[in-house]
């Protein structure tokens, strides 16, 4: 089991490294087209990365090692999430629970790294971004945990792979109102966590409205590259997770070459679908005020909580 888990992990990591910039490119392209622009093509993010790696990082006085170490940690955490989350297959390491709480805290490790980078820059904007970022992260966490908790109830385990497996074996549960509520909540949480519309505008250039961009304002060169890549991978992984929960079909529950290949294809399909859907949605949304965000999150939390309660009413007769 362990070996296959290792294989799967490597597959998922590499896939996500390759795919997530393309996913972002795709989303940008979809937006561009919907907004009537030509767009810069799906490969643009990869080009950006190459350019950034070739550039020299510039670092202001008073900043410390955090500026250079933070991005690395962010990427590492995103990759670790890719290992933990069932994207292509459900094989797991026996001793590392792909546990909801473990997954979330690994994710938060990256969040913290990002926030510290923002603070270390020593400019007003960095602090601002980091503060907003942390506030949102703090408010998102209950939603994430409770919604996955809701999904975990029918399966009786909080391990993501187990949940996905369970849904694979019992397709009825996918369409159950419980899971729908929970998934909506989870989706909102993912949107907020990854800084997409309407919580944050990834393509803004006005400092005062920035969240994510404000934090990376002072980073440049490969630091910036890592930061971008890290957050893209995280977006990909989370979307992938939502995908596997929403439509578990095709995911490899046993480890053979074919199943893994099928799983890969399924993953790509899900990512494309979700990504374009998200991008399409973003076109029609405007960024909401920062102090309206809590309302959004509270709403999603209520959904998640309702999901839990409902699931008990279902389970408990």
């Amino acid at each position, binding site marked *: 089991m362990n070996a296959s888990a290792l294989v799967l992990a490597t597959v998922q990591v590499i896939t996500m490294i390759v795919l997530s910039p393309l996913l972002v490119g795709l989303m940008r392209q979809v937006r561009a087209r919907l907004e009537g622009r030509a767009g810069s093509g799906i490969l643009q993010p990869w080009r950006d990365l190459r350019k950034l790696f070739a550039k020299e990082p510039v*670092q202001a006085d008073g*900043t410390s090692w955090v500026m250079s170490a933070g991005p690395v940690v962010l990427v590492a955490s995103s990759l670790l999430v890719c290992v933990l989350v069932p994207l292509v297959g459900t094989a797991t390491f026996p*001793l590392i629970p792909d546990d909801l709480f473990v997954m979330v805290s690994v994710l938060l490790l990256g969040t913290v790294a990002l926030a510290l980078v923002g603070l270390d820059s020593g400019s007003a904007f960095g602090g601002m971004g980091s503060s907003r970022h942390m*506030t949102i*992260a703090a408010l998102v966490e209950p939603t994430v945990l409770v919604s996955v908790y809701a999904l975990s109830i029918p399966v009786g385990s*909080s391990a993501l792979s187990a949940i996905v497996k369970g849904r694979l074996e019992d397709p009825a549960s996918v369409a159950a109102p419980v899971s729908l509520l929970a998934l909506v909540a989870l989706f909102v949480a993912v949107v907020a966590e990854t800084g997409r519309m309407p919580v944050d505008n990834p393509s803004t250039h006005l400092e005062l409205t920035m969240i994510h961009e404000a934090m990376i304002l002072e980073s440049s060169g490969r630091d910036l590259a890592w930061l971008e890549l890290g957050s893209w991978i995280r977006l990909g992984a989370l979307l992938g997770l939502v995908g596997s929960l929403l439509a578990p079909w095709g995911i490899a529950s046993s480890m053979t070459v074919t199943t893994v290949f099928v799983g890969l294809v399924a993953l790509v399909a899900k990512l494309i679908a979700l990504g374009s859907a998200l991008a399409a949605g973003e076109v029609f949304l405007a960024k909401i005020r920062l*102090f309206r965000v809590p309302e959004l999150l509270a709403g999603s939390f209520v959904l998640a909580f309702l999901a839990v309660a409902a699931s008990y009413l279902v389970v408990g007769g």
Partner: protein
Amino acid sequence: MTLVQAGLAAEGATTFVAVTAAILVAPRYRARTAGAAIASIGLISAATGVSVLNGGEGSIRLPVALPTDPVMLAPDRLGGFFMVVVGLVCAVAAIYGISYVSGPATSRTSWSAMAVFVLALQLVPAAADVVSFLLFWELMALSSTALVLAEYKTRSSVRSSALWYAVMTQFSFVMILLGFATLAGAAQHTGFDAIAHVTPTSGAATFGFVLLVIGFASKAGIVPLHVWLPRAHPEAPSHVSAVMSAAMVKMGVYGALLVSLRLLPDGPRWWGLLLIALGAVSAVYGILQASVASDLKRMLAYSTSENVGLMFLALGTGLLLRSTGVSGASDASIVACLLLVAGHAAFKTTLFLGAGSILHATGERDLDRLGGLGTRMPVTSWTFALGALGAAALPVTSGFVAEWALLQSLIHGARTQDRLVAVVMPLSVAVVALTAGLALLAFVKAYGIAFLARPRGPGAAAARESGLAMRFALIISACSVVFLGLVPGPLAAAAANAAGLSGAGATRWWGISLDGVHALLDPVALMVLAICLAAAVAVVSIRAARRVPRRRVELTWGCGGVRVSPRMQYTATSYAEPLSRVFDDALRPERDIVVTHSGESSYLVERVQFRQRVGDVVETTLYRPAIQLIDRIGLAARGLQNGSINRYLGYSFAALLAVLVVVSL
């Protein structure tokens, strides 16, 4: 003479040595000798606790001048667990104190008080009957009050804080006294073993339980009885506040465990609910206050009441699930409670000692004046960072493992048809999650503002790394944070052993396994995986660094080349501002903004003043009115003694008549 007896006796003897050293030794060497002695008290008690956990027994009977039931010291396993935790904390803090205390705190009194304090802390969990428990409890209170007062010459705020602390701690003492007295009255004996025979459903048991919970909660800093905590911790010398927060507060938790596991096991289920409610409220409120506080030690104090809240929540969950019949999960959550105890002890010690180093180096507790210490105080920075990781429950630290266990038990606890549990568990999950999230913000703020970017004040700019003993203690405690995170297995086994449960243990001796809920966690493996990935990334980035080296510039982006002064950086206050807006109703911050317009036009602003103070809502709405009421009564009561002898004779006459009427009826 068993090992345990020897240990207890040795503690007493060492305390005597410490006190004499503190009094007799010349000031130059006082700190070293007394500190060393106190550290050894802690180590001895830790050793005693270990031997108790390994099944060692033994009791010491104290001589008392009254014909009461025997007054005994006989630690049981639970006590042993706490003796280990508390002992180690005290040892580290004492070592730290050696080079921390200079000036007022190195007085004879403070060192002797410290010794007594440490001894009392060790012996409270060793007590085997009501009287000895109360004795050492009150001794603990007295000595800690003396320590809070230690720096009375430098700050006048010490006095009011000490008063608050003294009164609140006396309040908790009285509650505990009454509670124990109720139980002892029902049992007609003061021994814990006798009290354990009281039927939990009886009225006396209920009354006693409630009183005891109130008492222990107020010592543990549970909202709304926490008001002493954010006052006493900042005023005490930092190593003392470390002991108070990491060890003394735990005595409240120990008391709660003692009552609900040993004295009154399997009580009615609302006991569990009561504990959960208390825990949840103080967890959320505590961390909210912590994340908006800008005084570093005050913030740590509030985070203490958050962590204790989680412990109470875990304990309550355990009781509730046990009464529901979900034994596996209940065992897991009680173990989680003990894991939280140990984990919190580790990282809170680190954090308070770190805060002490900052205070020592900069003379500042206010985060808004700190910054840039990371380069100036590397050791403090690293250790504080580890402590903060622990407090934020991030992998792989003691806090992470503990909260993981807690969530596991919460999630698996719900495998039941019981509606009550079905509602309580998800709510608890949400509370824990929100707490974790806010804790993240709070400690990112604390570390980021204090150690990163550029100094916001002269004190921070002039900071130097602290002394040898301090660094040593810091490193020890920081390592313990990581160690407990990486190797939780033995601790979990010890915890299960201490609580007499089977629901948890070690897997592969280092990893933790919660058999009750079929959950395994091997932090080492997780760590290895993480390191591999990080290493890969790092390699890439280093190879890139060969090609294009870093370039340093002097400016950060200031919207077009304005000279960016440190004052433009985000401060702790501004960092928490969005949050304090979101939770405006719960925190009620007082803001006042003064805008002075320039003469000509009211559109041109000349100067803007912004002040924000976040008081304690509980204090202003609960305590102030009570105090005023008592004050008013006192004022009115003066009329009783208005000096007129006729009135005084009238009192006596009235008493006489009343008595005559009574007896002749």
